[in-house]
């Protein structure tokens, strides 16, 4: 066991772009900063694997700022509980646990991919788009492998380009959005400084036969190893042989920790004011957990939260205009890649919805609330605690998750016992 208790001025959860930007600005403002992250190294998902795998000038500049800032980073740290009143979090490490008290808390917990079930989506080899990209960044060679990329959003193109650059064959990129929405978005992109590359890539892709709009995966070969995927575009259905299917339908904000800390959330994510303050005193939120907006918006929100949490509202205010622009872009993104209704009927009666507990669609159809789904089918009761199936049930059946109970991640008994001891009056 390491030390059991720590105290810090500003505690940042999440070391992706938003968390790094928040930590850097808070350190510049003279505050002590501790950053906790569940991953083995800082960078979040978009800059996963550090500079080596994210060689953009901006990523390098933030990694350098972060290293020079003097902010302490603890990687591999899992938050299992928290208490907004006592202003502390319980943290589990691979072989120890500790509690950390903060003056201000900045949540930059990011986002995860939205998966929509279809027959065969549980077969090994079917992964998220960012999921497979993360594995490649983690050392998985894909040279010569056939990878079908499907789902929705700009990540499809970026990931396809990444896989190709690593020697993979990407026979097709299947985007569910129709060209009538994508084309105006591509022209709009061109007007955003800094997005010219993406605009060019998207327009090029739209004219390439291998990027199909209004196209999606309807079935993966149902064996124990992926051999092919069935794709559909308009009335045409065909088999595309592949070794990996990378499929995801955009992102879902990671709001679980914020909800546990009793911060209010809206349809998009955690609710924040101009200064990125949540409804809870002393708690700020920045980046994808406030709504999906991409890396530019995440960095700006992180900077604002870092300044504001350090009492530098003046410096935070200077960034509001920049943030407004980034938010407009996020809104355009959302409308271009809005999910079509047909996706709700991809899963048939026997398709598994909850992968932890193997609960099928037919068992969930009669449920009228998330709570009854949990109690009667165990859906959402497994180790992912509804993180994968929760958004699916919301999309398919309109059921909303109600509350988050600790532990927010599966925790060891010793960690929970330690917590009990600490909260007991002495």
């Amino acid at each position, binding site marked *: 066991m390491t030390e059991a208790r720590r105290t810090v001025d500003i505690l940042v959860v999440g070391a992706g772009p938003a968390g790094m930007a928040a930590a850097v600005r808070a350190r510049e403002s003279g505050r002590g900063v501790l950053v906790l992250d*569940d*991953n*083995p190294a800082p960078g979040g*998902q978009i800059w*996963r694997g550090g500079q080596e795998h994210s060689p953009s000038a901006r990523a390098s500049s933030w990694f350098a700022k972060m290293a020079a800032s003097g902010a302490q980073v603890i990687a*591999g740290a899992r938050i299992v509980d928290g208490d907004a009143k006592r202003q502390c979090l319980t943290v589990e490490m691979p072989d120890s646990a500790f509690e950390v008290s903060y003056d201000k808390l900045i949540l930059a917990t990011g986002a*995860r*991919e939205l*998966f929509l079930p279809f027959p065969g989506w*549980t*077969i*090994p*080899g*079917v*992964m*998220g788009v*960012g*999921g*497979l*990209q*993360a*594995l490649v960044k*983690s*050392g*998985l*060679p894909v040279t010569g492998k056939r990878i079908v990329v499907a789902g929705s959003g700009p990540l499809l193109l970026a990931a396809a380009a990444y896989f190709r650059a690593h020697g993979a064959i990407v026979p097709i990129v299947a985007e569910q959005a129709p060209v009538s929405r994508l084309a105006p978005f591509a022209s709009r992109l061109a007007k955003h400084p800094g997005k010219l590359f993406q605009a060019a890539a998207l327009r090029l892709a739209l004219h390439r036969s291998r990027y199909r709009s209004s196209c999606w995966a309807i079935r993966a070969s149902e064996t*124990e*190893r*992926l051999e092919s995927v069935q794709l559909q575009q308009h009335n045409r259905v065909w088999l595309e042989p592949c070794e990996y299917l990378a499929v995801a339908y955009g992102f879902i904000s990671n709001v679980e920790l914020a909800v546990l800390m009793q911060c209010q959330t809206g349809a998009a994510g955690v609710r924040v004011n101009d200064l990125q303050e949540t409804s809870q005193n002393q708690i700020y939120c920045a980046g994808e957990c406030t709504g999906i907006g991409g890396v530019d918006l995440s960095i700006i929100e992180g900077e604002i939260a870092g300044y504001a949490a350090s009492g530098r509202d003046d410096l935070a205010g200077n960034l509001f205009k920049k943030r407004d622009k980034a938010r407009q872009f996020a809104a355009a993104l959302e409308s271009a890649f809005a999910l079509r209704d047909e996706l709700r009927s991809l899963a048939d009666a026997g398709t*598994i919805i909850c*992968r*932890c*507990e*193997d609960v099928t669609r037919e068992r969930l159809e009669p449920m009228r609330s998330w709570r009854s789904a949990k109690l009667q089918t165990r859906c959402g009761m*497994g*180790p*992912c605690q509804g*993180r*994968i199936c929760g958004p699916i049930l919301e999309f398919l059946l309109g059921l909303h998750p109600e509350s988050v109970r600790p532990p927010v991640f*599966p925790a060891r008994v010793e960690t929970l016992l330690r917590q009990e001891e600490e909260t007991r009056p002495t």
Partner: protein
Amino acid sequence: MAEMISLSINGVSIRVPAGTMVAAAVLIAGETMFRRSVSGEARGPLCGMGVCFECRVTIDEAPHCRSCQIICRDGMKVRTG
């Protein structure tokens, strides 16, 4: 050239560059089934970022380790299934 380290996947020894994540090493070893689901289905990594728990394996006798979040160590013994 990155430094190479050795570990065993289901008893078979493999060498991977230092810094490789366990999930990647399992796939490099040719295993696609990381665990059996509660109804016995074969499962492998989905999210790649520690959220879905589909890539759980046993590492050095410790069960339920998320292989996508753990970096390979020299001499590590990994079991799937």
